[in-house]
């Protein structure tokens, strides 16, 4: 089956190549003065090697151009491949202007290949000498990600270290977050007024971490709701979120000792359409007049539509999102806003469980590293550019290399 597909693919490929070649123009797109003629130019040098940091099946071909591209009749470089085990030849690709490297992804790790590059000038092929024989192979580790691994291990290590030390009973200090006290206050007010609570966990599905963060906070809110016996209404935009939210609320009611008060209808699916969902949530707000609205998760343009409608009915509103573009709208229209990272930290705070709090401490280590690196880096680059300091340049380059992600 797969072999058949491969054959079909190569047939399509070769025929389209032939097609492209058949229609290649005979004159250049540039009309330039007659430069050096073909015979004046030296030959093209070709190097081929296994493509770095990949899963195999690719060879990188590099060549240099002694000046063919400047010729009047130049069309492109043709990459020519010889399968030295099977003894077959084929043309792989005609590269466009300015290209000096090509990754041939149609090779097999089981064979060896040799490459030539031909300049196509005035319908002629000026072929280079073949490269050395190469074989593609796969790498077990992407070398470009060494620093990602090291830094990742340091930060994850710090998180786990603080979780473990919290488990052993070490007292950890964490400052308070303003928006969090507001959550209890909002639930309390809804109870007093005998009005429901509206909870929106963003408009993304479960494949967004912000949705999961919203649900973890829902866990804490639902516990308070269960204790106070307040009504909660949670419209959702994605069916998976509905299932997960039901599990969360149910668990909260059980923990609060009131499993009988739980009801699946607290969470209901509306529609997957972004603004259809907004239309429905707006409708719920003006009709049911919730005393408190929570918007915790990933939001897009609808953030302001919902927050303004909530504001118009006089509800206490607590929002939280990690979408930088939507934060200003929530800040403007809501009573409290969890900004960026606070959304992810909130559930740990609310749980008051030492292990969860420990994980936040670990994240602080990451922030400390980021601040130090930025300080050192900026000072180094400034000094390096102002006084041409070698050592500072070395630091600057090291940091660039460390934090470049390929």
């Amino acid at each position, binding site marked *: 089956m797969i072999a058949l597909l491969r054959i079909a693919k190569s047939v399509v490929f070769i025929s389209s190549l032939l097609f492209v070649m058949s229609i290649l123009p005979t004159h250049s797109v540039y009309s330039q003065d007659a430069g050096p003629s073909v015979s004046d130019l030296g030959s093209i040098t070709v190097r081929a090697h296994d493509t770095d940091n990949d899963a195999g099946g690719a060879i990188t071909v590099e060549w240099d151009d002694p000046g063919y591209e400047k010729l009047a009749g130049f069309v492109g470089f043709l990459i020519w491949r010889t399968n030295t085990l099977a003894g077959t030849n084929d043309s792989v690709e005609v590269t466009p202007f300015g290209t000096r490297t090509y990754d041939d992804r149609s090779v097999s790790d089981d064979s060896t290949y040799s490459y030539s590059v031909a300049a196509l000038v005035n319908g002629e092929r000026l072929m280079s000498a073949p490269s050395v024989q190469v074989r593609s192979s*796969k790498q077990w580790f992407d070398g470009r990600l060494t620093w990602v691994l090291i830094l990742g291990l340091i930060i994850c290590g710090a*998180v786990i270290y603080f979780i473990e030390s919290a488990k052993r009973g070490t007292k950890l200090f964490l400052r308070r977050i303003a928006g969090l006290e507001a959550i209890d206050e909002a639930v309390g007010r809804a109870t007093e007024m005998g009005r429901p609570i509206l909870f929106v966990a963003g408009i993304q599905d479960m494949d967004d971490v912000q949705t999961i963060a919203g649900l*973890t906070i829902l866990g804490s809110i639902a516990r308070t709701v269960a204790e106070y016996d307040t009504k909660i209404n949670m419209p959702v935009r994605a069916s998976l979120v509905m299932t997960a939210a039901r599990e969360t609320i149910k668990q909260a009611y059980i923990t609060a000792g009131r499993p009988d008060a739980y009801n699946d209808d607290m969470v209901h699916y509306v529609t997957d359409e972004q603004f259809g969902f907004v239309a429905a949530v707006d409708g719920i707000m003006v009709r049911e007049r919730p005393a408190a609205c929570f918007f915790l998760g990933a939001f897009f343009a609808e953030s302001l539509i919902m927050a303004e409608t909530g504001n118009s009915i006089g509800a206490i509103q607590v929002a939280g999102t990690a979408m*930088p573009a939507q934060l200003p709208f929530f800040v403007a229209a809501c009573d409290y806003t969890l900004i960026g990272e606070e959304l*992810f930290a909130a559930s740990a705070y609310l749980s008051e469980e030492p292990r969860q709090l420990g994980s936040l401490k670990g994240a602080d280590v*990451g922030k400390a590293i980021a601040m130090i690196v930025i300080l050192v880096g900026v000072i180094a680059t400034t000094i390096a550019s102002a006084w041409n300091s070698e050592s500072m340049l070395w630091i600057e380059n090291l940091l660039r290399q460390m934090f470049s992600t390929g």
Partner: protein
Amino acid sequence: MKRQIPMLILSAVGTLLVVSVFIPSARHWQEDASLYFDIIAVFAFFLGGGNLIRVHTEKVNRKSAGWIYSVVTLLGFGIMLVAGLFKIGNPGGIAGDISQTGSYFQLLFQYVMSPLNSTMYALLAFYVASASYRAFRAKNTEATILLVAAFVILLGRTALGVLLTNWIPAQLSVLQIPNLAIWIMNAPNLAGQRAIMIGISLGVISMSLRLLLGIERSYLGGDN
């Protein structure tokens, strides 16, 4: 059992995907995972769509307030399902592309869903105005800074900004509102964005670890 197996699945899948980032030949796991997600999401929709039908049918049965709107919703849902599943009016028949011009599905999209969608989006213009009126007030230091930054950017994007500060001489052109707006975008705004984004990523890391280590598991439900 009801809790341990899901925990195990969660940690195993998460760890494997973290590892896959570093191994070139394992990267396709990430695509497989997202394909799995797509497929699971469709099955979940049977629950979501079922819930939609149940909620609205119950409203109609109980003749509770606004039941007539539930009838409309159910009708709309049904019409779209029939038009889309059987590809009614589709010039390409059942094998045709779902959004082919002329199919009922496409017509409903074009004349019903699309105007509803863009109008709901357009309401934003009204809300942006009312939020500006109410929230853009120099109540305290923070609010004043927000107001000033917003006002400079806002003026910088209109002709008024050019008119207001044209008189500033070229040596001090930095202080002309359009240039000031560009500077705000490039310097303090960028700095704030960076701090927010670095913070977010560290928040995600610590939350993901809580999930993978099984410390945070409220969304998985209890033992029953």
